C-alpha cells in the first residue's frame, strides 16, 4: 500500500548525491570510526596516549597505513558531519538568507578543520620545527 508513496528521486541532482553520500560514507564510518574508537580505548587506552603515541602511529613501517587511515577518517567523518549539520539546520532555519549564512559558515569551518587535519597528517615529523622552539 505504501509502494506508490515512495517514488524514486530524480538522479543526478545535488540533493540525491548528498543523500547517497551520507549512506556510502555512513557505511564506511560504521567500520572505520567504530574501529578507531575501539582501537584507541580498548587496545591502547586513553590514559597512555601522549605525543609518543602519535610518533609511533605515524612513523615506522606502519606509518603510511595509519596516515592513510587517518586521512580517510578525517575527511569522511567531518564531511558526513558537516553535511548532516546543514540538513539539521535546514529543518529549523526557513529563511533563505539565514540558510545561506549557516551553510557558508559550516562549509568554511569544514574547509578550515579539514585543511588543518590534512596538513598535520601529511607533514608530521617527530622533529618538525615548532612555533615555540
Amino acid at each position, binding site marked *: 500500500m505504501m509502494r506508490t508513496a515512495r517514488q524514486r528521486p530524480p538522479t543526478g541532482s545535488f540533493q540525491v548525491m548528498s543523500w547517497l553520500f551520507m*549512506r556510502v560514507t555512513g557505511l564506511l564510518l560504521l567500520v572505520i570510526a567504530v574501529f578507531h574508537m575501539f582501537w584507541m580505548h580498548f587496545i591502547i587506552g586513553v590514559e597512555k596516549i601522549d*605525543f609518543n603515541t602519535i610518533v609511533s602511529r605515524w612513523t615506522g613501517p606502519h606509518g603510511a597505513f595509519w596516515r592513510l587511515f587517518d586521512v580517510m577518517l578525517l575527511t569522511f567523518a567531518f564531511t558526513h558531519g558537516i553535511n548532516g549539520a546543514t540538513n539539521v539546520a535546514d529543518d529549523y532555519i526557513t529563511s533563505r538568507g539565514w540558510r545561506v549564512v549557516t551553510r557558508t559558515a559550516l562549509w568554511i569551518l569544514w574547509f578550515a578543520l579539514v585543511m*588543518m587535519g590534512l596538513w598535520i597528517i601529511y607533514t608530521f615529523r617527530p622533529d618538525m620545527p615548532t612555533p*615555540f622552539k
Partner: protein
Amino acid sequence: MSALGRFSAVIAESVVYRGREGQWAYLVHRVAGLGVLLFLGLHIFDIYLVGFGPEVFNATLFLYKGPAARVLEVLLAFGLLFHALNGLRIIIQDFVPRLMRYHRRLFWVQAVIFSILFIPAGTFMLKEFFGIAGGLLITLALWALVPLAVIGQYVAPTPLTLNVAEVGGER
C-alpha cells in the same frame, strides 16, 4: 518564530509527542550526530596541535584524562554506536523499502545489538576509575535512556497536537 525557538519547540514536543520508537530514534540520532560532530571538531584541533611539539600537545591532553572525561567518553561511545546502528537501519530500510513495514521490530533488534555492545564496552571503559560494579552502574544509567524513553512514549498521558507551522514545517 526564531530558529532557536523553533528548535526548543521541537525538543519540547519530541519529549511528549507519542511517535514512539521511530520518533525517539530520530531525536537521538540527531542529537548524537551533532554531539559526535562537536567532539570531532575538538579532536581535529587537538591532533593539529602535535605540530606544536610534545609539550603543547601533552599539556592539551588533560582534556581527555581522568574520571570525568572518561564518563564523557562513554557518552561519546553511546552516541557513536547509536548513530552508527540507527544509520545502518535507515540505510537498510531505504534500500529495501518493504522492510519499512517492520521498522518498529527492526528498532528493537537494533536496541538489542546496541545493548550487547554498549553495556560491556562502557563497563570496560569505566573500570579503570570506578571498578567493574561502578562502571556497570554508570553504563546502565546511560543505557537506560533507551528503554525508559521508549516506554515513556507509550505511557505519556495525552498525545499533543503538533502545531506544524510552529515547529517550522511550513514552506
